[in-house]
């Protein structure tokens, strides 16, 4: 069964958000990595790029599929997990920790209220 940590917010498109001091760390969920399996390639934005909520900000590719990533919050990219360039499998191995994708400077904290709670995400993914 896929892990859904209690302290995160979730998007319908299977990204997770962890907020600390106005910075949101974004990744894809355990359920998502499990569905994709063997992630072999990740394309991420550059630091300083800005996105609106629900903008496409990158892709993850498994052997058999390309999946677009959507930013759950509006803001500027303050950090990118460059380790994924050579080790995309970190997303499979550690989706909520070493497999994080980007950090975003939150522009509008109220956007977080529109995201899903762990329970809502659990029922979305049928666990």
């Amino acid at each position, binding site marked *: 069964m896929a892990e859904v940590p209690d302290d995160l917010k979730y998007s319908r498109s299977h990204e997770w958000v962890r907020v600390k001091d106005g910075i949101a760390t974004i990744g894809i969920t355990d359920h998502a990595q499990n569905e994709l*399996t063997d992630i072999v390639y990740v394309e991420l934005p550059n630091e300083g790029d800005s996105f609106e909520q629900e903008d496409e900000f990158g892709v993850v590719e498994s052997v*058999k*599929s390309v*999946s677009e990533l959507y930013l759950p919050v509006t803001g500027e990219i303050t950090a990118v997990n460059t380790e994924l360039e050579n080790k995309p499998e970190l997303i499979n191995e550690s989706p909520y920790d070493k497999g994080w994708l980007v950090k975003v400077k939150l522009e509008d904290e109220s956007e977080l209220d529109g995201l899903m709670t762990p329970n809502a995400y659990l029922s979305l993914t049928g666990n």
Partner: protein
Amino acid sequence: MTAAFFPGLMSAAESATEPGLLKGPLHDLHARLGARFVGFGGFEMPVQYSSIKEEHEAVRTHVGLFDVSHMSNLRIEGPGAEALLSRTTVSDAAKLKVGRGVYTAVLRDDGTILDDTIFYRMADDSFYLVPNAGLNEAVRAALEAHADDVEGDVTVTDVSRATCIFALQGPDAPAVLKAAGADVPDTPPFRIHEAQVDGAVCQVATTGYTGETGYELFVSEERGPEVFEALLDAGKVHGIEPVGLGARDTLRLEMGFALAGNEFEGGRTPLEAGLGWAVKWDHDFVGKEALVRQKETDDHDRLVGLELSGRGIARHGYAVLDGSGQQVGIVTSGTLSPSLDTAIALAYVRPGQAAPGTEVAVDVRGRPVAATVAKTPFLKRS
């Protein structure tokens, strides 16, 4: 995150909503083995069990077992069978001895490939043809349309639903087949023998789609599940793994083998698809005139291998660009090669771009990624 799956590999979510997908006779067994399913050629088939990379590796280093019962099976029988196959395929069936098979193509009148297939000669007047998944009716119709052109009666019987096909592939495949009790002589590829596995009569062909040593086994639908399990049991000591369509795709792509739904999409001739070697020109066959004309003008696209040197993976439908950014081709299949850890692809390119070593680029979602035309197979075997 929204996933786009590649042609032939529909996502489980999509296939679940597609009505009318057939469940093969091994569906329950695959589910017990932990399979995830996809829609392919009208069937719900296993795309993977453990992981595509792991299953791929199992076939390259020891042995894997595939259920490919979604493929079609036609029997062509009667005094006119040989002439009908010569008329409707690019091969000369008269040259084929009993117990042997040949890789061929069934063409449309305009020379484009309706299907690529293998047919075997089982007896003087009896042949067995294996069309791709979902193409049984189209190929049967293409054959029957010419039944009156040939002398001698001939019947085409579709036994697709009554037959299971399994592919046992990998360096340890001969040992596993032997351990399963099948007495099959050590022969070159494209031979077919009758043998028993677990007491069930199978036709065992020395063919495959992986580039490895191996077999394709044809067995009745009733005995299929037990034969599949018997092969898994016999292979346990060799670390056998059930393998899904995901790894089947990466394995064939490393060898540069065409997949009907991808490489023949939109109408491609054997000359374009690099299958000119399979065409026997000294007999008459459907599509020959168009093919002869294309051979004379020699200005057609060519299917080539691409190795990407920049970061990114070429996928079905991506444009191939020349140095000035002009489109000179289109990708038909692409993946990250598990064995080579390089992004590889098959693509149709204009004739001037087809020589090995030609530098091109692939438009990966708006970003040109450097690539080189490469000889196939990508995976060089010693």
